[in-house]
């Protein structure tokens, strides 16, 4: 419920390793709320979220360790440089094997390593936000409109990264207004906001 409005009920979804869920629906139907419930940032009014058969509120830190969330906000500090921002993201989670310069290189921000994040364009900031996915090691990626402000080339870049994550037996849950080209056998779609 949000402010006494029922958003959705009777949802039952199962995701296996290597699968991806795309949540679709009109604005205001509760896509963001659902994603936030899956991350544990928001409490559901009823029901539970299970990760490997265990409720996530019981797992706490162990669950968060395996989740990477990129929401509407970039989660990027404007006064810190790109590298400093990534170092922080690493400190909060499980560091991946990649060197941070490599990470920046993969998202085409190598030249901006020491630049203050505040002086980046919206698209660059979004790439930095998504770079977190490479800087830390997480099985589950929960992404809310990841392609906002990105140009076509960047979108293709990240679609590629999503595929790699699925190949690694990771799981992705995302919402997007854009069309993503992905192997359909790994894809599940969930449509919210349809009248009962």
């Amino acid at each position: 419920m949000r402010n006494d409005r029922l958003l959705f009920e009777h949802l039952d979804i199962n995701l296996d390793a290597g699968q991806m869920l795309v949540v679709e629906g009109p604005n205001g139907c509760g896509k963001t709320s659902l994603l936030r419930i899956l991350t544990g940032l928001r409490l559901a009014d009823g029901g539970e979220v299970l990760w490997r058969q265990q409720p996530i509120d019981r797992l706490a830190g162990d669950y968060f360790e395996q989740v990477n969330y990129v929401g509407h906000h970039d989660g990027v500090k404007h006064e810190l440089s790109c590298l400093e921002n990534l170092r922080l993201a690493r400190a909060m989670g499980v560091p991946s094997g990649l060197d941070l310069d490599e990470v920046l290189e993969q998202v085409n921000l190598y030249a901006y390593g020491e630049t203050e994040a505040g002086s980046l364009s919206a698209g660059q900031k979004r790439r930095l936000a998504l770079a977190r996915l490479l800087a830390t090691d997480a099985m589950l990626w929960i992404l809310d409109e990841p392609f906002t402000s990105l140009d076509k080339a960047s979108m293709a870049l990240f679609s590629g990264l999503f595929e790699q994550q699925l190949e690694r037996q990771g799981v992705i849950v995302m919402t997007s207004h854009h069309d993503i080209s992905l192997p359909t056998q790994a894809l599940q779609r969930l449509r919210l906001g349809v009248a009962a």
Partner: protein
Amino acid sequence: MFLWFHKLGSPPHFYRIAGKWIPWLTWITVLLLLAGLYGGLIEAPPDYQQGESYRIIFVHVPSAWMSLFIYVVMAVCGAIIIIWRMKLAEVVLISSAPIGASFTFLALVTGSLWGKPMWGTYWVWDARLTSELILLFLYLGVIGLHNAIDDKRTAARAVAILALVGVVNIPIIHYSVEWWHSLHQGPTVTKFDKPSIHWSMLLPLLLMALAFQFYYVLALFHRCRAELLRRERNSKWVEEL
């Protein structure tokens, strides 16, 4: 036993049960109030030191007790909300706050009116009065915070935390008259040995305390029912009423 508790926690069930009890509670409250006031204002002898003006304790002391009691109830609800997210606890907490605030205000005002003839001043900044005033602000804070948050279930979590944080103030208020010797008189009723107050004054005091307790439950039931209707207005059981 747990089944009864679980049933009680269900909003429509509570709504019905509370509704049935309200007339009884009203009668009991009125009777106790009349008995207490009669005992306190007419039967009890005048105090040898203070004469007639002491009689305000029959309102002052029970309201002070209620102000502490209700806050503890809110803190317990707060714990229940955080651990189990029980809807009824949310409703009881927020319905109790205005009642508790009123009792606190009443205690402060009656104490102040008593203070003038007894100590020569309406107010003094000793530990007990100051912490009782803090209690009033805590109540107002709970009401204010709850109003400020739109989503009422989130608001319940917020005030639950606030109530629990503020509960530290309660032992300070209670024990302040023992820890600091100042203007407010020491404990006379809640000491562990025999209370140092005469029975003819103690009885009306206890009657008034009981009356105020019943009044709290009565007012609580009224408010809870109204709050439940407001919160669950879209649910089936409310539509069927």
